[in-house]
């Protein structure tokens, strides 16, 4: 079903866990829908110095979480905000079609964590929401 790269990230996820006293926390999804991700960030000099994730969800949800942490680690916040769910899926070499519209929230979780960081600095940013069909869940 999944390709090897997805399986590698699923079985050997990078950056699992939770940072203590994080600079930003992002949480997206909902256990009711079957997937939920929680990203914690350490920010230094406008860059993502460290990142960890915790995910409730299927193989795709866990693999994309792991992948996104690798993609954004070391990026500036502006760069990290440009990383999209689609890019995450592509970096994994693609996801099965039935998983594309679901379980592919990882970039959003990062964006939410960055937004949380800015908020703590007193800055309100708006996050581009990607076109995806996750909203279809309806709850």
């Amino acid at each position: 079903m999944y390709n090897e790269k997805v399986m590698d990230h699923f079985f050997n996820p990078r950056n699992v866990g939770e940072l203590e006293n994080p600079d930003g926390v992002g949480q997206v999804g909902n256990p009711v829908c079957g997937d939920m991700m929680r990203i914690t960030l350490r920010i230094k000099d406008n860059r993502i110095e460290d990142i960890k994730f915790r995910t409730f969800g299927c193989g795709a949800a866990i693999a994309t979480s792991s992948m996104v942490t690798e993609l954004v680690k070391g990026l500036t916040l502006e760069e990290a905000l440009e990383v999209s769910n689609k890019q995450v899926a592509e970096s994994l070499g693609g996801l099965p079609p039935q998983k594309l519209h679901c379980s592919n929230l990882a970039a959003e979780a990062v964006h939410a964590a960055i937004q949380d960081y800015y908020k703590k600095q007193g800055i309100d940013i708006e996050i581009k929401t990607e076109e995806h069909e996750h909203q279809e869940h309806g709850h």
Partner: protein
Amino acid sequence: MSSQPNAQRQVYLDHSATTPVRPEVLAAMLPYFAGKFGNASSVHRWGYAAREAINDAREKVASLIEASPNEIIFTSGGTEADNLAIRGIAHARKSKGNHLITSQIEHHAVLHTFEALQKEGFEVTFVPCDKYGLIDPDDVRRAIRKDTILVSIMHGQNEVGTVEPIKQIGEIAREHGVLFHTDAVQSAGKIPIDVKDMNVDLLTLSSHKIYGPKGVGALYVRRGVRLTPQVTGGAHERMRRAGTENVPGIIGFGEASRLAKAELPEEAERLSKLRDKLIEGLLREIPDVALNGHPVLRLPHNVNVSVKYLEGESILLNLDRMGVAASSGSACTSGSLEPSHVLLAMGLSHETAHGSLRFSLGMSNTEEDVDYVLEILPPIVGKLRAMSPLGPGSGL
């Protein structure tokens, strides 16, 4: 797959999804692919051989459920048999009434067929179940109206294994002059079935769940019950289901039925013991695990548990890597967005329903298989829970 390191053991625990064709069955089928390959309608020796073999298989399938051979219609599987029963009776009895009754926990082959009939204009009542997945015959009684023409309630529930009170429901239907269909795909060969004793008018069987080949099933239709054919064409199956007969498939189904009946009492006992050992072990070894389905009125081969704070597919992938095949009511495994409608009908939260696991036992399974699952599953759950944002230790 390369991410599946050579697992020490291969433990197939997904017999409710499908079973291997057993050697005796394959042996019975083999002559009919190339040697005795005739069309059963043909007027020559190849044709006669096929016709005779089908007659023989029909007797064996009928015998599994204590029916007469001419009450058996062969179909391409359980799904088609469900469709034929439900659409066939609804269309044949349209003039008698417009109301149909089924339950909320039927297999999709039944549920979606009733939904299709709703679109055609039929009214359908979906009776609920209790927290064990058990249907109350009184709910069925109360649902029956003057214009009710069919009740369809399954025998053994495919996900959670609950065995429904079919005999009582059949009695109620008969009292009210309403036809009664039951989907016995999961119960056949596992627990005894006697269509007469159970007051059943129509009953669905599927070959590939009882070590027969895929692509063949049957509908029992009590003598005298008329239905509208859903696949029309040649005069096969006494004008009730057209299409050149799948001769090797039918023969395999016959042999599988014969063996299932012969071995039922012993095998049911053996599987029940394995089942109970697995259930007890899971509840003992893993925290926050709950049994789904009825603790006693249960198919001998079904184990279904919820593993809290986790989603099912992630567990399945890990089990598969260790050589264990199971299934889940998680939405992600079905490509849909909603988790199992059965677990939701039983009152489970969406969250818990996403984390259900079904182990379905079969012929090849041993105590060692159960021990193996009990050995490898706790660390898998531990590892995934450490990754989960939910549950104790997640800080939420």
